[in-house]
């Protein structure tokens, strides 16, 4: 048995050759895979929609040109075929089209199950990646919300002191500086220097002072990229009596008056 006869024996049962004219009328077929009726009054394009959709291309086909359509699924007599279709002009008659149907159903069905698994795996992985992105964003959002909540709590904590009161001036400034200088808020260093002549305890609107300083400092920090910021607090007027003693005296007088 020579190679050609072996080839014929093993490959021929998997291929069918159909000969037709440019209008897809059947001229001849070897009927290896399925039977085509030569006496049928209608063109093959009635039976095979693929032919109807590419019929116009046959007229434009060059002599040495091939049209190749891989993995075409076709239902014929309740059987499903997955075949490679090749079309070219018959070298012996340029008005005839040769249609070679190579049946690869078995191979493609095997690959189909692999591809299905591959597709499902790909979708699962992409979903997982997407979920991870969402988780990262949610974590960042929670983190930002915590920062905002912290700042809001500080404001709430300060708000009852919105009226004039006695407060520790130096501590208040340090708290404010600490809040503004937090790494997640701003990286520019912020330093505080309070003149020693300023009393540590003052009478006034602590909340208002914090709010004004907060607004000024954050605005400056937004425009400061590569330098340090120094906040220096100095008295602009010297009182004969400290505010604290004045309050003490006023309170003392009031107490006396009540007696």
């Amino acid at each position, binding site marked *: 048995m020579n190679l050609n006869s072996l080839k014929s024996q093993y490959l021929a049962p998997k291929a069918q050759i159909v000969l037709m004219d440019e209008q897809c009328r059947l001229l001849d077929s070897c009927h290896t895979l399925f039977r085509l009726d030569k006496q049928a009054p209608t063109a093959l394009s009635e039976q095979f*929609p693929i032919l109807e959709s590419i019929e116009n*291309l046959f007229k434009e086909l060059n002599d040495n040109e091939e049209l*190749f359509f891989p*993995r*075409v*699924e076709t239902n014929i007599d309740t059987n499903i075929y997955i075949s490679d279709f090749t079309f070219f002009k018959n070298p012996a008659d340029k008005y005839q089209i040769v249609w070679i149907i190579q049946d690869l159903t078995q191979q493609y069905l095997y690959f*189909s199950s692999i591809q299905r698994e591959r597709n499902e795996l*790909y979708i699962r992985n992409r979903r997982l990646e997407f979920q991870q992105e969402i988780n990262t964003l949610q974590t960042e959002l929670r983190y930002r919300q915590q920062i905002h909540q912290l700042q809001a709590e500080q404001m709430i904590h300060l708000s009852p002191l919105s009226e004039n009161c006695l407060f520790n001036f130096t501590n208040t400034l340090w708290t404010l500086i600490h809040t503004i200088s937090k790494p997640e808020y701003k990286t520019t260093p912020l330093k505080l220097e309070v003149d020693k002549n300023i009393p540590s305890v003052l009478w006034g609107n602590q909340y208002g002072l914090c709010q004004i300083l907060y607004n000024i400092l954050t605005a400056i920090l937004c425009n400061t990229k590569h330098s340090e910021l120094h906040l220096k607090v100095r008295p602009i007027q010297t009182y004969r009596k400290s505010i604290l003693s004045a309050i003490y005296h006023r309170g003392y007088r009031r107490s006396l008056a009540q007696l």
Partner: protein
Amino acid sequence: MRSISKKIILTGSFCVGKTSLISRFVYQRFLLNYQTTMGVRIDKKTVALGDTNLNMIVWDIGGEQTQVRIPDSYYLGSSGIIYVFDVSRPVGFKDIENDIHFLRQRLPYAPIIVIGNKRDLVDENHLDEIRSLVGIPIDFFTSAKDGIYVEDTFIKLAQLLIHEP
């Protein structure tokens, strides 16, 4: 009554429901199981529009990760395109614009209908959000399962095809 035939390609990523859309449009049925299309499956449906019978020959092209992987021969002689994406898979949204760009280059004169399928899997309130995320005009949000806007999709393309020069 005149009769014309047009080749239409139905394309998009894999597992977006292209075969289910065809199944709904041509055979009025829905397949619950995921069926992979290996290459291409060709179906035909005739639509009557005014004085024209349009034979829509739909090439259901097996989904790939990108349109670039699809064999060139599948595009030959195509008159119209239906591009499908899955609204329940936001991970695929970023590929849509590139795919459409590729298709426009491949078939510059073919009208393209863009549809988001599987609308039955998402909250109706999210559709506007999806529209803004995708970044290109979406013609319909369809459900092959429930048959919502499936017919409309094909009819809209058919109308564009019979009025083309």
